[in-house]
């Protein structure tokens, strides 16, 4: 390989280059392209999914998930950091990124999604039920919620069930109250503004919605947005998505990653390794010889390589 002395002055041909002109031309061309394509195709404008739209479209699924929040059986209830300590979270060997980050956004789904919103409602029956719930022991609450969740799941499309044996305690009244609150749109507002008066933090409604495989998960699957559908690359409707994320998405489609509980951590580590490889490409043996074997640069600068000056 030819050694180049960086201290030596360039002795090859030189020519003027108008960088400002090039930037102006690039901005104008890209601007015209962006405006033209926006007029031609517009942009995705999918209607927002809310707790109100959820309970309206799938009331039985809403009731089951809300009961699951009380029973502590949903995805967010058992997620671990940054929301709670219910699980250690994802890890790879000694690398425990989720655990190391700790609980930074403490959320107790039973309280945050059900109990606290009901307490600010004007539903006297639901508030009385919440008070009964709060007065009971944790063991008793678990028994009520698990029994009602099991019964709702077994019943399929029922949104409320009778309790002849009094085994569900105040749970049916709480879930009925929460469903009515959600149907009126008040629950969306309550979860958005429970930490701040500005409705800008969507963490709670998003977590609650994400616990629903039956409604939210089905909506994502229908639009090819699922993790196992190259979803991170896709967009709603027929618009092109983020195709440059293909390599991130690729790992989620194949084993052992797609069936691993630690897929996110492992794939992040693989991508970090590949990014380092890209950064240090000129230092990697074999890889750094590729331009000599496939000289694309010689095709780009073919006139220079054909000129007598290049051979000196």
């Amino acid at each position, binding site marked *: 390989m030819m050694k180049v002395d960086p201290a030596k002055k360039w002795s090859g*041909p*030189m*020519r003027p280059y108008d960088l400002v002109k090039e930037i102006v031309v690039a901005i104008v061309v890209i601007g015209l392209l962006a405006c033209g394509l926006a*007029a*031609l*195709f*517009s942009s*995705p*404008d999918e209607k927002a999914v809310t707790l109100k739209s959820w309970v309206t479209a799938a009331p039985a699924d809403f009731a089951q998930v809300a009961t699951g929040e009380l029973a502590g059986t949903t995805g967010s209830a058992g997620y671990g950091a940054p929301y709670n300590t219910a699980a250690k979270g994802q890890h790879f060997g000694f690398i425990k990124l989720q655990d190391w980050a700790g609980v930074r956004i403490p959320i107790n789904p039973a309280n945050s999604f059900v109990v606290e919103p009901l307490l600010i409602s004007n539903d006297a029956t639901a508030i009385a039920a919440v008070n009964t719930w709060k007065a009971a022991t944790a063991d008793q609450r678990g028994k009520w919620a698990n029994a009602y969740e099991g019964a709702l799941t077994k019943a399929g499309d029922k949104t409320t069930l009778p309790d002849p044996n009094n085994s569900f305690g105040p749970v049916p009244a709480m879930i009925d109250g929460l469903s009515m609150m959600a149907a009126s749109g008040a629950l969306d507002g309550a979860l958005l503004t429970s930490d701040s008066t500005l409705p800008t933090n969507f963490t709670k409604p998003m977590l609650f919605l994400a616990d629903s495989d039956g409604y939210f998960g089905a909506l994502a699957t*229908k*639009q*090819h947005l699922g993790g196992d*559908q*190259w979803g991170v*690359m*896709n*967009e709603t*409707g*027929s*618009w*092109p*998505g983020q*195709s440059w994320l293909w390599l991130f998405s690729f790992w989620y*489609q*194949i084993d052992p990653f797609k069936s691993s509980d630690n897929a996110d951590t492992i794939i992040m580590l693989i991508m970090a390794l590949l990014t380092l490889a890209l950064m240090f490409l000129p230092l990697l043996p074999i890889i750094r010889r590729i331009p000599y074997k496939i000289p*694309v640069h010689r*095709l*780009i600068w073919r*006139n*220079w390589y054909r*000129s*007598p*000056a*290049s051979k000196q």
Partner: protein
Amino acid sequence: MQLALINLNHPAHYFSFGPFAISGGNLAIIIAMCVIFIAALFIPFPHSNNFSQDDKKEDRK
């Protein structure tokens, strides 16, 4: 409200082969990028034939 000349607000068509699946929109963008890359390789730079002439001018100085 859709004001675009071409309405893309409908379910996408997906091409699947093995574990790979790609939407028509993404495929179109990737093909367009490949075409632009190949065009950039073969379309000559403006004044790109001036290498030897410029060198001669440099030599005369």
